């Protein structure tokens, strides 16, 4: 294990221990009834937003190094270890994922790695269903949301561990729907300098899967990149780089619709959202700079362990075992 990865591992263990202890020492009771929670915490008001900024900065680095989106890390970790209610965490999570997608989108589109024609039909289904998911999520009691979130995160961990990736899926023939919509493309593979022609298949099945993805993205405030990439790559047959890039861009549409639901239902606190967005964006910039010096595979396993811990925390919190 390289020195950098060792340092990151130690940092992550320390971070999770610190968050657990802070939540115990300074957190307020999330099970409060519908009355103002009396100020019982000894933490100054700026304490948690500052910790949030630092943590999201680290998450931004890890997201780049581990090849995951910021949203899938943000919601379970912030929701599990900070005193913020899961409603506000999800609203912030969507805006964090949205900001990241908006920042990455232009470059990915201009380079041709992200394909607008692939994204547009998918985005329509995913964004409409994200609205439904957001409304369901805001209507559900928090313990049900936490339980379902925990189970989903554990499922995501399983997907990350067992899902294969295919750099250049073998799509022998495009299906009639993708032919009718002219969903195909060419991109320049940087490693070889060659132009890669691609087409997709199983378009109806893929679009149907995005119904589920959209609902889950809206319900849990997750970015959905963890699901977009396998569907685009393994089910529909888009090359891996096109799948990753299009997925990132796709989030800017899917998360827009869900984010509006959270904004218009009052589930957004600027004191949470802005430090989170700035933290993750700065962390992503640093992550890109150190990416060349780390082994992404090793960091990815660290991220998986963190998600496993956060997912268990959310699940146990939801069922009342670890409150």
């Amino acid at each position: 294990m390289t020195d950098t990865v060792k340092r990151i591992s130690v940092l992550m263990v320390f971070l999770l221990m610190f968050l657990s202890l802070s939540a115990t020492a300074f957190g307020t009771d999330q099970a409060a009834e519908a009355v103002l929670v009396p100020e019982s915490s000894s933490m100054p008001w700026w304490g948690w937003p500052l910790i949030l900024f630092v943590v999201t900065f680290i998450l931004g680095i890890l997201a780049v190094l581990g090849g995951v989106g910021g949203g899938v890390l943000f919601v379970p970790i912030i929701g599990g270890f900070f005193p913020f209610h899961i409603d506000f965490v999800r609203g912030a999570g969507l805006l964090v994922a949205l900001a990241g997608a908006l920042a990455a989108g232009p470059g990915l589109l201009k380079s041709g790695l992200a394909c607008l024609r692939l994204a547009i039909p998918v985005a329509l289904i995913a964004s409409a269903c994200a609205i439904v998911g957001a409304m369901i999520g805001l209507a559900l009691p928090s313990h049900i949301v936490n339980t379902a979130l925990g189970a989903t995160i554990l499922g995501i961990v399983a997907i990350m561990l067992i899902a294969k990736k295919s750099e250049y899926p073998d799509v022998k023939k495009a299906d009639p729907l993708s032919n009718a919509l002219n969903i195909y493309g060419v991109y320049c593979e940087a490693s070889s300098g060659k132009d890669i022609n691609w087409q997709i298949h199983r378009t109806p099945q893929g679009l149907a899967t995005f119904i589920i993805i959209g609902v889950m993205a809206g319900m849990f405030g997750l970015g959905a990149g963890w699901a977009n990439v396998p569907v685009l790559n393994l089910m529909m047959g888009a090359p891996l780089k096109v799948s990753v890039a299009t997925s990132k861009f796709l989030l800017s549409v899917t998360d827009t619709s869900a984010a509006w639901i959270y904004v218009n239902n009052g589930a957004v606190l600027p004191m949470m959202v802005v430090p989170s967005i700035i933290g993750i964006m700065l962390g992503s910039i640093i992550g890109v700079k150190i990416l060349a010096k780390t082994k992404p595979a090793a960091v990815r396993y660290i991220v998986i362990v963190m998600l496993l811990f956060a997912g268990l925390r959310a699940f146990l919190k939801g069922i009342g075992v670890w409150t």
Partner: protein
Amino acid sequence: MAGKTEISEQIAYAKILDKGMKIGIVILFITFIIYLTGILTPYIPVKELPQYWSLSVHEYLEATGIQAGWSWLHRLNRGDFLNFVGIAFLSGVTIVCYLRILPILFRKKDTAFAVIAILEVLVLVLAASGLLKAGGH
């Protein structure tokens, strides 16, 4: 790269997205500085925030008397609500991008994608409208 005719709407989308994202982040940063420094008095004093952020959104709205939806537009003289300008801007950039590519799609007679893009605009506008209210818990 995709074929030349496909790039035109893709590049147009990317250019608007790029500008919109940068403007939105700058607005967000400036309004947050105004909020933190207290240049505009926030509706909820910052020292009281810890008493609210652990409540569910339904409890939070009841306790603070805040109305959801676009009511924040009436409170732009408050430091915390001013931040919604940047949040709304970033959340609205995608709608502008879709509107930008519609003429290109119609010019190309790409009817299927033009219809899909119009439907997407309608979905996003519906989400942004404030008409969809989630039940409380």
